[in-house]
């Protein structure tokens, strides 16, 4: 609790700044974990709020070094995830919908180019959804939550090195699918679409 003196606003500002930094650094990863282990976005938000309120209200927390603060945040989050899961009436976890073909409007593009582009997005989306579940997870955490491989490792409870390796492989695999649609098993699934992923070069409208 802040002492009752003239510096209360200074202290409050300082603690606020410190917690803002803490939140910035850890909340994205913690939220991604929470979202994965709760039934709804609202529940995940509630969970993250609980975690930060918990550490905020513990006077010891501010005295911890960075490692210990991180450790507490993650430990508390994991416990609360089990708590929330058991309390919830929606025990069924819904798989997360994170891919959406962007609405694409650009006057500079020809209609043909636009439709090719849309189809390319659709193909990529299908290609991603044909990936193994873990690889899709990685992409979702990487691109949808902006997490570093270290944070992804914490969310999935795997080693940082393993995450990097799988991520590289996933992106390479996608790149290969995108570049050479004739090859590979996943491409067979994608080959039912007729538009090619690549456009012939030097294709100019007359």
């Amino acid at each position, binding site marked *: 609790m802040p002492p009752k003196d003239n510096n209360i606003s200074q202290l409050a500002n300082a603690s606020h700044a410190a917690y803002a930094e803490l939140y910035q650094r850890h909340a994205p990863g913690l939220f991604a974990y929470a979202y994965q282990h709760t039934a709804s976005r609202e529940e995940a938000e509630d969970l*993250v709020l609980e975690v930060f309120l918990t550490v905020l209200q513990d*006077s010891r927390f501010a005295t911890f070094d960075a490692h210990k603060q991180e450790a507490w945040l993650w430990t*508390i989050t994991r416990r609360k995830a089990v708590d929330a899961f058991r309390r919830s009436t929606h*025990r069924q976890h819904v798989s997360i919908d994170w891919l959406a073909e962007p609405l694409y409007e650009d006057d500079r593009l020809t209609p043909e180019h636009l439709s090719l582009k849309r189809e390319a997005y659709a193909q990529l989306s299908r290609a991603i959804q044909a990936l193994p579940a873990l690889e899709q997870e990685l*992409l979702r955490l990487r*691109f949808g939550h902006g997490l570093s491989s270290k944070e992804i490792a914490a969310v999935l409870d795997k080693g940082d090195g393993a995450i990097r390796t799988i991520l590289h492989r996933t992106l390479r695999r996608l790149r290969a699918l995108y570049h050479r649609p004739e090859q590979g098993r996943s491409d067979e699934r994608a080959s039912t679409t007729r538009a090619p992923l*690549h456009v012939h070069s030097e294709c100019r409208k007359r």
Partner: protein
Amino acid sequence: MNEHPPHEHHCTCTASAASDRQADPWSDAAGADPPDEHGLLEAVAALSQAYAEQNTRSLARVWTRLIHSQNSAGWPGDSPLPPMAGEEHQFMMEEELDMSDRVSDTPDPLDRQLQWDGDTPAQTAPRHPAGRAFTRRLGTVVAAAVLVVIVASWAVIAMTVHPGRHDTGSLVSSHPGATTISTAHLQCSASFDTQTRMELEQPPLTWSSQGSIAATAPFLHLYAAQSCTAQTFINRPLTPVQPIWSPDGQRLLLLHGDVAEVLDAETGHVLATLNADPHGEFAQAAWTPDGQQIVAGAAVVVSHTTMNVTVRVWNASTGALVRTVFTFDGVLLTSFSISPNGQYLALEKADHQITFWNISIGNLASTTASTSAASVGGNVEAMAWSPSGEALAIAVAQPTTSGPIQVWSATSGQLVASFTDSAPFEGVIGGLAWSPDSHYLAESSTEIHVWNVASKQLVVAFGSVPAKTISSKGVTTFARIADVAWSPDGRSLASLTVAYPADGGNGQATLNVWQLR
């Protein structure tokens, strides 16, 4: 979709279907040829943009709620977070994709370690062999995209009474013993305000052989167990501490960061002071049965899952260091535990084997077989040493039930017993404690369950609290029973309930003493 290449109708093109020089459809400039890697990254980012924006809004909403909860503490009323470091991530992505060229095409040895077949969609095997059974049990409850729920908690050691008074006897006896429990009645209660949500105190509740109960939430509160009357304490510490009663109940050891103090339990006078390493903090401690020495583990957290621990023995009267017994590196945070009689300790490292160490002799007592260890460090909810100090009960987290509870022998490393709570808890387990005669285990979450260990039967469930309530004014309150502690004679059980508002603010802790019959 038009099967003919579009150029037939509109463009002049060279027909080169398999040409390497392909224009990138991801590029906005038709005819330009940027590196396709970059385009791919941008394309995935575009596909996930709507989702990413939702997440950004989620984080902003939580921050706003956090601000509002702290307005009374003087936080500025309106302070949006500075923008996230999105640019950093962009750079990292490209860097990573560059690196990917160096990764060979040969099968990754990590694949085997992860037990994952990269070519099979929607099939992820957990890292740990024991986890496979875990996953099967989860079954249809969990969709393919969800991974194993890992729960870690700081170890909650149930403080049963000094084991020195009791015969070691058999661990799991077939006789119910002199006391047969089937009912519980509330004997007395006491409440106090608490700031903490009681997440990581350990242990929050201890019952001395002299009939005093120490509750930390997070500050020390002392009560007479007979009446739940608050006891005054001259030097009552005003900072969070971890209390450990001496075997005769006459002294109280308080752990506070890098300092530990031995106090006279009646007067509160400091009798001795112990100092941890400058860089370590006292994590756990125990008195030897004769009350002469204190065994303590001091820890330094080195990552968000591991710590380095040094175990030492101190003279309880003078505070002088007697000897350093062990140094452990890379201990999983929630897995370290010293038995209440200071005889054994248990810990787990990344290899998922529990190792038991004999403190008085100073060597390794036993190791559990890695295939049967419950991945303690990741999944433990609560731990409790048997009164003899030779067996450790561990509650392993599972999302839909509160079991199983595994009982491991410290001397042999064998799994002695394993059972699942048939009445699943609503929330995470807070308290776990053996009765002084080793016949019963008490568990608490939103209810208290008492088990007969030998028959693996639930003998009584009581003290239920609502996990979540919403008042008529729309205030959400969470509650759970954070810890339980047995009386020295095994006839009573104390419990500590914590209730707190969801959106911040002080909560209330309630001490209940239950008569068991």
